[in-house]
């Protein structure tokens, strides 16, 4: 499905990131590049991924040309972190680092990749957002703000780039079984399950397949959209 195409996905050691890499690898993608904050997190079965160690908090000062001297067809902006706290207890450090990694780092990666995509008149850009960007979530003012901002970015970029055969979309996962949801306790998990009509958490492959769809020829005429993959949790 992805023959002769290259993928760059940020955060390839996380649950969703590694599933995305895996899905594209299984579907014939040529080269798969990824970023991680720590190369020690790379698992043995991820040897096919060309990892670069980057602190996305500091991406402004990194020469991306030296790091990724490659042709990128698919860019998946997946890396993200959360530093939850009720708003009145949230430190400005935690606010800034979440906005910086989840939103600002995308600006720099996009600048680099979009230039290459404009030149060859092809590109598929997919952001991983979150259902909470659309519903809000107590304790996640920084995280929801960073993810909701992506929605505007997706639309503006889609309008700017559609004449060059570059599509820009996002996926808003609901509650996905991942290292982020592993941190929740049983009471929290049960409360969440009670709100999901499908009565189960999603898994990271559900997201990977949605990313695959948006990068495939089946989605050639889809741009500026958000695909909600949430088991019915929020119908938007």
């Amino acid at each position: 499905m992805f023959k002769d195409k290259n993928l760059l996905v940020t955060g390839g050691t996380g649950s969703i990131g590694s599933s995305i890499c895996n899905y594209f690898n299984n579907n014939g993608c040529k080269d798969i590049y990824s970023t991680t904050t720590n190369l020690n997190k790379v698992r043995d079965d991820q040897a096919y991924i060309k990892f670069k160690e980057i602190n996305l908090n500091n991406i402004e000062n990194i020469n991306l040309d030296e790091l990724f001297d490659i042709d990128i067809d698919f860019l998946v902006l997946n890396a993200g972190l959360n530093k939850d706290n009720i708003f009145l207890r949230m430190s400005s450090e935690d606010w800034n680092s979440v906005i910086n990694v989840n939103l600002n780092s995308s600006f720099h990666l996009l600048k680099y990749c979009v230039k290459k995509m404009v030149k060859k008149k092809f590109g598929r850009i997919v952001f991983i957002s979150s259902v909470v960007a659309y519903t809000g979530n107590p304790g996640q003012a920084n995280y929801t703000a960073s993810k909701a901002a992506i929605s505007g970015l997706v639309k503006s970029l889609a309008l700017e780039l559609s004449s060059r055969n570059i599509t820009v979309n996002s996926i808003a996962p609901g509650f996905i079984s991942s290292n982020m949801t592993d941190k929740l306790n049983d009471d929290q998990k049960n409360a969440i399950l009670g709100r999901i009509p499908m009565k189960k958490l999603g898994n990271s492959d559900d997201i990977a397949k949605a990313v695959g769809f948006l990068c495939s020829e089946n989605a050639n005429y889809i741009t500026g959209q958000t695909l909600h993959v949430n088991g019915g949790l929020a119908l938007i």
Partner: protein
Amino acid sequence: MSDIEERVKKIVVEHLGVEEAKIQSDSKFIDDLGADSLDTVELVMAFEEEFGCEIPDDAAEKIVTLKDAVTYLSANSN
């Protein structure tokens, strides 16, 4: 016509698909030659490639005609 002007003109003809005869040295890429704003970015990238130099954003924004490009590249290309 200088060598630089010749090369710049060739790039403009190729990228914008306009007839060479229609390009005057003061023709504006957007207003006179039908370019959109992304075309101007692509033109600058093509100039960079052809002349082996890097054109910073603030200089790129000032290149709006063939003459602007030739003047900049005459002073800055290798």
